[in-house]
């Protein structure tokens, strides 16, 4: 180990370990059959509103105060810096007659607020982002303006990667398939899909995806963001309307903006608001001309990655049919992770995929691969193959990624290693429910529906974000903290991404540390309505009791209701 510090990220080879250890570190072995749970389908029933807990007023006031202080300090800092330290602020000043890349105002948030906690983001890692993730150690200098690297890495429990079903492995059938595909097809796909970028592996994957999601046909792309961002301009134009959930992902917004279609947003998951909006829009038509809209498309996500909430599919389908709109569902986070058979929201609500016009999803999350797909009826996909910019101008998916996708899809569907896919699905459901209920019982405010593998825990004050993230890293747990603009201003949060690779004992370890840190940081601000009392117990439970009782309780839906 070198003691010389370096400002460049070092290349670190994973520590030598036996094959068994490696396997266990990437995908924790199941410790007991108790720790499995099959999602019960909603049978087309609407979803119970997840418990919305609100913090006491003092928390809200403190959070606003916290921002106020940060902003005032930032402005003082800017004033002093621009007066006395001009050489350190070259980036926001005019230089040789060129405007700065970013104006002072535009970059204020980044320079004065985000920079303070920059050490919690973009941590370099090495190796497989499986059950454990190796974070490369770094030392921050001069308020995060640069880092030095001592050349070591720390194994942390991974609650940060979108590795829902634990397919991020460097060993096993998926990896074998990926390696074989390198031999047969190489590592690069040669060009756009319409020129030389299509191989039989591409077609096979498309067929598999279509069958998996239950649509007639599907298309695959090399990047999830790109699938959305370059999709809408092929089907929508300025005479069309998009009705979009206010929390939709940026890729959808970019795509819709590119199409030129008018966008109206409805309040997150608020179906009355949506219905009112649709009616209003059909009646009034296009702005100015008042001609009727050519198409109206409702865009929602299956599982919202920051909230852990799910779309109200039954109601959406009802509205879509009633008002003849089209429905686009982005299943980036839900495909593979939600539903008893892992087939996303349709599976969860037990509804036919034919109710959704266009289903989009990614392979980055549950499948341990990369890229995205769009699945729809055959006539739609046939036309899109000729119309999309991605298929005609952009690179195609590299073969090893396809092999990984194909194999993991087959495992989930049960065609390969029967039983393994099911176990993965049941483990993630159990893990998600266990962590969510346990955190609620400990007195934290946690958002989201019971089965969602995204478990956002609210921190509120922005200064608690770096504190939480750093303290967790000290305890060898890698977590993701998110704040404004990804969330509402005061609702800074930590987002635990659950994986099938975690064992129940891993979650116990996590709970003990979150409990300890939470107490130190005064994070237990729940009103108690979300942790249904058991035998008249008060709501802030003791950690040992939570760990003892929750594994059994979390399988029961009644504990997730108010």
């Amino acid at each position, binding site marked *: 180990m070198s003691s010389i510090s370096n400002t460049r990220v070092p290349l670190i080879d994973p520590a030598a370990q036996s094959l068994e250890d490696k396997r266990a570190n990437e995908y924790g072995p199941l410790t007991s059959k108790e720790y499995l749970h099959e999602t019960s389908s909603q049978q087309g029933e609407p979803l119970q509103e997840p418990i919305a807990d609100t913090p006491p007023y003092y928390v809200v006031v403190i959070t606003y105060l916290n921002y106020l202080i940060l902003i005032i300090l930032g402005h003082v800092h800017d004033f002093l810096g621009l007066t006395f330290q001009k050489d350190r602020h070259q980036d926001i000043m005019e230089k040789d007659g060129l405007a700065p890349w*970013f104006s002072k105002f535009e970059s204020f948030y980044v320079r004065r607020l985000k920079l303070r906690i920059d050490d919690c983001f973009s941590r370099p890692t090495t190796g497989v*982002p499986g059950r454990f993730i190796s974070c490369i150690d770094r030392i921050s200098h001069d308020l995060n303006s640069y880092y030095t690297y001592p050349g070591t890495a720390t194994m942390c429990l991974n609650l940060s990667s979108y590795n829902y079903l634990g397919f991020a492995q460097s060993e096993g059938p998926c990896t074998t398939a990926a390696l074989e595909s390198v031999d047969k097809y190489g*590592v690069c796909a040669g060009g756009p899909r319409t020129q030389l970028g299509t191989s*039989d592996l591409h077609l096979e994957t498309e067929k598999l995806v279509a069958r998996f999601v239950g649509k007639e046909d599907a298309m695959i792309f090399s990047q999830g*963001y790109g699938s959305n961002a370059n999709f809408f301009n092929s089907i929508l134009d300025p005479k069309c309307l998009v009705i979009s959930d206010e929390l939709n992902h940026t890729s959808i917004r970019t795509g819709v903006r590119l199409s030129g279609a008018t966008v109206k947003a409805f309040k997150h998951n608020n179906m009355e608001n949506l219905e009112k909006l649709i009616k209003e829009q059909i009646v009034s038509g296009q702005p100015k001309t008042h001609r009727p809209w050519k198409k109206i498309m409702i865009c929602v996500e299956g599982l919202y990655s920051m909230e852990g909430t799910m779309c109200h599919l039954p109601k959406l389908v009802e509205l879509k049919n009633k008002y003849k709109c089209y429905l686009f569902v982005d299943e980036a986070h839900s495909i593979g992770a939600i539903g008893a058979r892992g087939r996303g929201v349709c599976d969860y609500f037990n509804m036919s995929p034919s109710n959704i016009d266009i289903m989009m999803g990614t392979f980055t999350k549950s499948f341990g691969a990369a890229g995205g797909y769009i699945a729809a009826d055959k006539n739609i996909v046939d036309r899109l193959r000729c119309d999309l*910019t991605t298929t005609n101008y952009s*690179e195609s998916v590299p073969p090893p990624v396809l092999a990984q996708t194909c194999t993991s899809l087959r495992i989930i569907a049960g065609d390969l290693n029967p039983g393994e896919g099911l176990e993965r699905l049941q483990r993630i459901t159990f893990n998600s429910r266990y962590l969510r209920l346990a955190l609620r019982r400990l007195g934290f405010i946690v958002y989201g529906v019971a089965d969602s593998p995204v478990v956002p825990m609210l921190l509120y004050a922005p200064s608690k974000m770096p504190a939480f993230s750093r303290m967790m890293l000290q305890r060898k747990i890698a977590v993701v903290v998110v704040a404004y603009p990804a969330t509402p201003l005061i609702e800074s949060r930590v987002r635990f991404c659950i994986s099938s690779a975690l064992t129940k004992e891993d979650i116990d370890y996590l709970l003990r540390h979150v409990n300890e840190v939470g107490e130190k940081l005064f994070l237990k601000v729940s009103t108690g309505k979300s942790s249904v009392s058991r035998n008249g117990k008060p709501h802030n439970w003791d950690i040992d009791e939570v760990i003892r009782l929750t594994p059994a309780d979390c399988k029961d839906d009644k504990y997730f209701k108010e």
Partner: protein
Amino acid sequence: MQPPAVLPTSIVVPDFILRTSSYVWYYCQNFVNAIPGSHYVVDYVKRSHQHDPYRTMVEIFLIIYGIVYFLRKPRKQGFQAGPKLTDRETDALLDEWQPEPVTQSSSKVEWRTEKIPVVLTSSSKTYIDLSRNNGAELYENVLNCCSNNFLQITSEPDVLQVAKNSIHKCGVGACGPAGFYGNLDVHTHLEYDLARFFNTENAVLYGQDFCIATSVIPAFTKRGDVIVADDRCSVSIQNALQLSRSTVYYYDHNDMDALEDLLQQLQERELKDKLPALPRKFIVTEGLFHNLGDIPPLPKLVELKNKYKFRLLVDETFSLGVLGSTGRGITEHFNLDRQSSVDITIGSLATALGSSGGFVLGDSVMSLHQRIGSHAYTFSASLPSFTVTVGSEVLRRLEKDNSAVQRLRQLSNRMHHFFREDKTLKEIVEVTSDNDSSVLHLRLTEDLRIKKFNYTEESFYKEISVMHSKYLTDKHIDYYETEEKFLQEIVDYSLKEFNVLISRNTFVLKHETLPIIPSLKVCCGSKMSDQELLRACESVKKAVVYIVTQEN
């Protein structure tokens, strides 16, 4: 206690009102006095009332108006309350509305799907097997003149071994965006390698080459900024300009005098306008044009951008690894230093470098802001780790030995020479690409196009522009479609008769907002032998001549 008298006794007011109001006044006064510092305010009001009693009245009126204004229901801006509809009328309207289908029927464009080659082997190799039309046609050992993997370094077994080692070490997917534990050490190292290889301060990796321009340009532009772009840019840049919110001007393709005139005009206008802040100004062009294959006069561009204080963005998707004696792109081609001449370079790992993904080169400040403000970087998962390891390996090999680049240039020159010098071909086709381009762009001559399909580039562009301004999305133009099919016949003939695979330039009319003309592309790869290249050229020539004369 007697309340203080506030009204003169001459006015007759019922006693209880007088009494109550006096008390209220009295307590109010007491209350105001109790607030520390209130006497300043009271004194001020008194004095101002003394100076000008009307002012007090105006101020009171203003305060009341303010309160009313704030309490009023907010009215939507620009909202015209139309006639109120009854429920029955609303229902009738809802019932009446019929949407168009999600997509138009595919019958008119179906033929394109049938012609897509499905590769059955590695597409980076010089010889490939392929099938078409759902396996109805099968071709073996086809000479591959269609691949974008020009240098073919990633078809070498030991490079593939690097990819396999990486999969062994890190798995396939990165499972997260760069900001949240998605970037491995190898990602950062490829960024170092790219910056070193192309001699810039920094590099930023992206997941897909096509998304980069549409993400980088809007990240740095806002309303009021100015972009001057070449009018033959590819769709990726067209989309980016649409998303940029800035004022966009186009200059004639590679015409530096036109550009200078435009910049001059803009400068004069800017001086006249006296803007509150300096706008950001960009010149946008491509290193090797996607649609035409030619090269912009970079030295002149750099001179102009320095003179008029613009920044220069060059999309080098097709030129990195191809142009310049060691493959360092258009700057090396013109013997310029990249760091000082080009501000933003967009590059692709999926073309000459033969991996997957893309990157942006530039200075550190610009790179840092991209990592926060560029959507395709922040909101998208990192590249799979094997693609970046392969990228680093390719760069390492190029640094050691650039014979692949040299060989590619040799072949490109030879290929262009063949098509440019051939007498029979001169009559029917024209070559638009530069001799150094590894892609040969071939289109019918203007005369032949008029004769056969009866249209010119201008008339065609006019027609698309009209359709565009009417927001027609199903841009179907018969003569364009016929010419596309005609070119496809050439492709088919060369495949069937000579086992040589070339391709049309697959434009989507719907998305093109700038002038285009159907064309063919013939690619060469550095692993081809001279004979193979000659065979390819001869075959394409025969195919072109056969189809053109046969139709006459």
